[in-house]
């Protein structure tokens, strides 16, 4: 499992980190990543394309992880179960990649207004899930545009991937756009 200290070390030197995690410890890796964010005075923008944000909220509540500074861009709930949670923005489909980029930039502006002392940690969960809905060409373009837009804002970006389900092609692309790779 990837430890918080390891995450801390790679983010000291890099802005965009590809995290390759085994499926067995995937959720634990996410929680370590969250821990890193919260311990380092970050506001977290969590792009959830794997499971609905409500699942994470349940986990946070059961683990006691403070989540008031965690904002979700939820691409899996669709519009069937839109809650009035002020920390969740629903994007209707994981194919609406430009909308995801805009929501990240929107949260960036909001957090600069409301939490000026906190810098954002953006977590994409996961490259594998986005690849189910999008072909490799558009996905590469999405990550490239997202990185280009968030880098000047001082944000850190973690791209999560499930190692066992990563194709060689997707893996090469993600390595190309990331500053470094953290493998579990």
């Amino acid at each position, binding site marked *: 499992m990837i430890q918080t200290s390891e995450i801390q070390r790679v983010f000291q030197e890099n802005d965009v980190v590809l995290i390759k995690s085994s499926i067995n410890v995937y959720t634990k890796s996410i929680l370590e990543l969250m821990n890193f964010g919260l311990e380092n005075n970050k506001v977290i923008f969590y792009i959830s394309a794997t499971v609905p944000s409500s699942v994470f909220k349940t986990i946070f509540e059961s683990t006691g992880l403070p989540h008031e500074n965690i904002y979700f861009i939820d691409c899996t709930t669709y519009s069937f179960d839109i809650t009035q949670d002020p920390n969740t923005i629903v994007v209707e489909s994981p194919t609406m990649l430009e909308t995801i980029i805009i929501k990240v930039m929107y949260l960036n502006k909001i957090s600069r207004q409301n939490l000026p002392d906190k810098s954002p940690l953006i977590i994409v969960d996961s490259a594998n899930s986005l690849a189910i809905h999008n072909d490799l060409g558009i996905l590469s*373009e999405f990550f490239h545009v997202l990185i280009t837009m968030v880098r000047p804002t001082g944000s850190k970006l973690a791209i999560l991937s499930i190692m066992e389900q990563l194709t060689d092609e997707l893996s090469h692309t993600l390595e190309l756009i990331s500053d470094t790779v953290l493998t579990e």
Partner: protein
Amino acid sequence: MDMINLERCKTGIGELDSLLNGGIPRGNSVLISGSCGTGKTTLSLEFLIHGVENGEKGLYISATEISSKVIKNMVPFQFFKEEYFDSGYIKIMDIPNIYSKLSLHKLEFEQEDIDKLIDYIADIVKNGDFKRIAIDSLTSICYRLRTEEKIRDFIIKFEEIVNKIGATALMVSELLPNAKGYSQYGVEEAVADGIILLGNLKRRGDLLRTLQIIKMRGTSHSRAEYVMDITPLGIMLSPLLKGWAVNQ
């Protein structure tokens, strides 16, 4: 680097101002073209509200919605300030009231009716010291003008007023969903100083709003299509990802 160093009127929509190399050249009258639901009214009102933040008074001439409804629809936006409307920094005028005031009851306006309407708008703009004007929509006025000559005459006279007083205007042009041009009568797009096209892009079941600057006199500008989203902070843009093999 810009071609001509003209004074700019910042729309206040950060990404759009960047695409325009700093904003709309002051004095321009710009067509905001699009079919229903593309964000024409939101863009126009956001332009006026950001103008007040820069000390520029705004005039909104509405033909499609009554003023109370226009204001109510803007309440969810963070940039909305009711006091801008209450204090008269932004004035909303309903076109039916203007027609009624000027006794313009005919379905088709004659030249003298056009002159009367233009003179009235000119007086309001000058006396109110309005620096930003939005007509929502120009199409509805054109409906009463009918012929290309009258439409051309109205728009040119309106543009003269705007340019003379150093204001900047947005003129909403309503399009049918599959329209080919940028205006319903064809004349509007030829006479306008600029055209910003708002669209709906259907892609694998998703309906994305798009924005593209077709022309803007007096400045170099982007000509690429962008995805537009209406957020509580107002309009935001992202580059349109081109990986999709679509013939858009």
